[in-house]
């Protein structure tokens, strides 16, 4: 029985943890840590060719530069790293695979010295033919990005295809798709493309590594979402014992998946473990241009979707081919492909599903985790296709979605039954909020106005054994310390954990402190990804706090000689109303209680808790079927009211309505923050973002002047954010994740609104001004659909497309 009282438990609007330090500027991020004059600095020499054999790296002149101690090249640190597939080396070895790939590392006394010396390193290449187009790379295999793919170690739930560019092939084979298409009254086929996009967190990457020369122990301070996964990937990469690697993750300035796994830690470690440098800390700070040039991106995406619909407007079958452009590494990027596959029916009840999802290597920066993990791309395509179908069948887009909705008990494409949710109610609320079916005149002269809706669905695509654990410590004054190795990167998880502890212990929120991750002090957590933390780590924190409560109450029970059930903790004070007792928590929780028999009992009170998803089963590799492939889905809907200026192609968002079924909002301030933030990030991706390359694979958008992201002027006039609470069965308080989901549907909803406004379908994201303008010009010539393939320069593309 829970016997607590608190005003600061779950569901309350509380000020967020660490906001005070953030507001006064004192919170120290990795770049703010100080190591004194011992600190060395590394700077990176990067490849200037997209695909080439390295003939020579001449760094004689660099070594003569002031302050330079050493130049390290790929062969000096020849380890392969990777979370799911070990296809990555920190520096190119023998062969460079994209423009910007590290080929050497200069280590010097100051950052300026290192940067100056980088300019003196001369690398000569024999250029090889590159491949940039994922469809061409996957279908022709004329250029192999990783000829050694068959040699790389990988986890058993991904399936690389040796001697091709396919790093992972995930399949869904549910029902009889062939028959469904043969018997369908209507069959539709559409293609949609999304470019690679950049996370654009404001904090770039920064790592500091140090190895103790005697013990060999390694310490890594790094801007990482997942301290333990960094430790795991490093340990497996260099074949080193876990207890000799300590990863300290200071607060990070935004992650969005871009700091989910290992980023630049191994590159920095190549210097810190060098025989000549060992013992001195080495710092590797990656400036903005190099972040855009050389780090994780959201994968490019090409989707072909075929939909079979019967006479009643019910979806009977879907056939999907998804090409994810994963660049030169799929070490993390192999998994968003699986994630999209798991949900390739969207939010709809489709009995027959055939999906082929490919992660395809190309000579571009590597794709990986990005908020939404495959689903923003998938739904940017699928929700537009559904809208096209509704329009062609002359059914209104709200009704068409609602009549095909995947309801409780119906099976997803992996054969798993859907749980209860309130999506139908959410759709109604969204439709009403923006009056989606009502045509209204534009508020700006000469502009056109449109409204659109799109659905969001996503499950955490975590491995079946992704676990969390937490420790809660009670101090001798009643305050509490929580060790939970989730990274609070702005989403506000530490506020959630403090509210959970307050809920379980009856101790005020302000008395609870949650610490940033350090693998030395914290118990294990897999990763801060997948919108899993309030759920998975939330479960561990709840269990730890309730264990602590039980220990504390048991001691008071003996001390007061009264049954446990009669004791409560109210606002931090332990009470027994029956006996009229009321005592503050004091040193006795550290040193023990002197019991009535005169014996001291107790001692420091610690609660611990852990959680592993109890019932996940990996899908069958041939069919993708599993009784429970994912832990749960969060569903939602977004409505957009927008206007477009036909004279310039500019889109302005008047209003957004976004609602999700979060199960239970632990920290409402953060749920609202995640919905607003994800909505604008989704709109930014929709309207302006694309990693753009020239025909040699050189990035044309290496800074925030050319790579545009939403500013305050691009934010919509209004966001009507709301949520429903249909409880989740296996969950601390019924809660489900919402952090990523808010990014999924704004783009397709905007695209659908653009169609209502103009009668034009744009099949390639982003809906940039230039593209919208061109599309509207094409409309004047009678076109109804507009494509701009990202590789228009590649003439082979059109042929490959037809061969699908």
């Amino acid at each position, binding site marked *: 029985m829970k016997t607590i009282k608190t005003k600061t438990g779950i569901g309350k609007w509380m000020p*967020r943890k660490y906001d005070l330090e953030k507001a006064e500027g004192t919170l120290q991020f990795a770049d703010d840590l100080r190591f004194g004059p011992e600190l060395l600095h590394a700077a990176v020499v990067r490849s200037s060719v997209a695909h080439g054999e390295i003939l020579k790296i001449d760094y004689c002149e660099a070594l003569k530069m002031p302050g330079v101690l050493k130049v390290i090249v790929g062969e000096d640190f020849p380890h392969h790293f990777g979370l799911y597939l070990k296809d990555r080396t920190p520096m190119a070895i023998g062969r460079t695979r994209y423009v910007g790939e590290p080929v050497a590392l200069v280590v010097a006394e100051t950052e300026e010295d290192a940067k100056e010396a980088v300019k003196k390193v001369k690398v000569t290449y024999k250029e090889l033919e590159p491949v940039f187009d994922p469809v061409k790379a996957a279908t022709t295999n004329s250029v192999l990005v990783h000829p050694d793919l068959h040699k790389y170690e990988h986890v058993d739930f991904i399936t690389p295809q040796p001697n091709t560019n396919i790093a992972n092939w995930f399949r869904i084979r549910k029902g009889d798709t062939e028959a469904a298409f043969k018997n369908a009254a209507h069959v539709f086929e559409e293609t949609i493309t999304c470019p690679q996009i950049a996370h654009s967190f404001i904090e770039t990457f920064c790592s500091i590594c140090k190895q103790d020369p005697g013990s060999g122990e390694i310490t890594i301070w790094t801007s990482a979402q997942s301290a333990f996964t960094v430790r795991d990937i490093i340990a497996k990469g260099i074949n080193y014992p876990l207890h000799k690697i300590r990863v300290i993750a200071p607060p990070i300035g935004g992650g969005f998946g871009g700091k989910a796994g290992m980023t630049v830690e191994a590159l920095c470690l190549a210097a810190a473990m060098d025989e000549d440098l060992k013992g001195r800390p080495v710092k590797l700070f990656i400036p903005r241009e190099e972040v855009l040039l050389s780090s994780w991106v959201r994968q490019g995406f090409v989707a072909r979707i075929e939909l079979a619909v019967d006479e009643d407007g019910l979806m009977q079958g879907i056939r999907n081919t998804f090409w994810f452009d994963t660049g030169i590494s799929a070490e993390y990027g192999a998994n968003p492909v699986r994630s999209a596959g798991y949900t390739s029916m969207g939010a709809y009840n489709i009995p027959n599903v055939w999906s082929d999802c490919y992660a395809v290597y190309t000579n571009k920066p590597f794709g990986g985790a990005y908020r939404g993990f495959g689903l923003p791309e998938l739904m940017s395509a699928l929700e537009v296709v559904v809208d096209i179908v509704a329009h062609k069948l002359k059914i209104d887009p709200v009704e068409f979605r609602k009549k095909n909705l995947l309801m409780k008990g119906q099976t997803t494409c992996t054969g798993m039954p859907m749980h209860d949710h309130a999506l139908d109610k959410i759709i109604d609320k969204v439709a009403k909020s923006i009056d989606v079916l009502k045509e209204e005149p534009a508020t700006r002269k000469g502009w056109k106005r449109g409204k659109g809706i799109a659905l969001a669905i996503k499950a955490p695509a975590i491995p079946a054994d992704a676990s969390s654990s937490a420790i809660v410590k009670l101090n001798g004054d009643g305050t509490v310390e929580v060790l939970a190795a989730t990274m609070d990167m702005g989403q506000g998880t530490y506020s959630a954990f403090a509210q959970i502890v307050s809920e379980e212990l009856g101790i005020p929120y302000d008395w609870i402190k949650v610490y940033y991750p350090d693998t030395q002090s914290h118990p294990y957590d897999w990763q801060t990804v997948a919108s899993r933390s309030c759920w998975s780590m939330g479960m561990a924190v709840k269990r730890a706090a309730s264990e602590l409560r039980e220990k504390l109450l048991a001691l008071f029970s003996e001390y007061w000689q009264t049954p446990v059930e009669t004791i409560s903790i109210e606002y931090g004070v332990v009470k027994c109303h029956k006996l009229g007792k009321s005592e503050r928590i004091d040193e006795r929780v550290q040193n023990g209680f002197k019991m009535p028999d005169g014996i001291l009992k107790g001692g420091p009170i610690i609660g611990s808790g852990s959680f592993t998803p109890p019932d996940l089963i990996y899908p069958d590799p041939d069919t993708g079927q599993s009784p429970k492939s994912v832990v749960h889905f969060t569903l939602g809907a977004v409505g957009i009211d927008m206007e477009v200026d036909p004279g310039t192609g500019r889109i302005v968002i008047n209003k957004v309505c976004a609602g999700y079924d979060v199960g239970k909002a632990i920290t409402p301030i953060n749920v*609202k923050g995640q919905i607003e*933030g994800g909505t604008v990030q989704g709109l930014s991706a929709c309207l302006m973002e694309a990693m753009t390359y020239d025909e040699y694979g050189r990035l044309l958008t290496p800074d925030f002047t050319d790579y545009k992201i939403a500013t305050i002027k691009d934010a919509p006039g209004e966001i009507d954010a709301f949520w429903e609470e249909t409880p989740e069965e296996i969950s601390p308080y019924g809660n489900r994740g919402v952090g990523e989901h808010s990014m999924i549907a704004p783009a397709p909803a905007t695209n659908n609104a653009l169609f209502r406004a103009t009668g034009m379908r744009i099949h390639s994201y982003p809906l940039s001004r230039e593209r919208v303008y061109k599309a509207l010009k094409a409309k004047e010539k009678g076109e109804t659909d507009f494509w701009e393939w990202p590789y228009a320069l590649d003439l082979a593309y059109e042929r490959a497309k037809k061969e699908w």
Partner: protein
Amino acid sequence: MKDKYVTLTINGRKTTRVVEDRTTLLTALREYGVTSLKRGCEEGECGACTVIMNGLPQKSCLILAREAEGAEILTVEGLVEKGRLHPIQQAFIDEGAIQCGYCTPGMVMTTYALLSKNPSPEEEEIREALSGNICRCTGYLSIIRAVKKSADILSGKAKGGEACEDY
């Protein structure tokens, strides 16, 4: 490169720093210990290094330290008086206008500059003033609410210090 000296007043404290010709004001201030200023882009695009220099908001990555000779610099650390947050800082907390916190010091300083000049700005004026500060987390609407609330607190129309519930 030859070292030179620059004397400036940082949050009320006068100090002389050793700098090179190429040292930016951002680097000089961070080396002094003012690490609220962030290296977000180092080319004037993100606004995470915004300071008030002689009363005007400036991106410190675009100013050479030696150009700041004799200047009065105010950063977010300098807004805290005797342990009490400035109303702008408090409003940012109350309105959930902070997520990762990396852009926050720059946002707060730009807001400070705006409200010093225009104590009750219209929403369009807020958007114009903050358009050089990028935030990737919040979606900006909470920041707009925080600026409006800051103006209300400063003019005595509102009180700070409570997490805002308007759901």
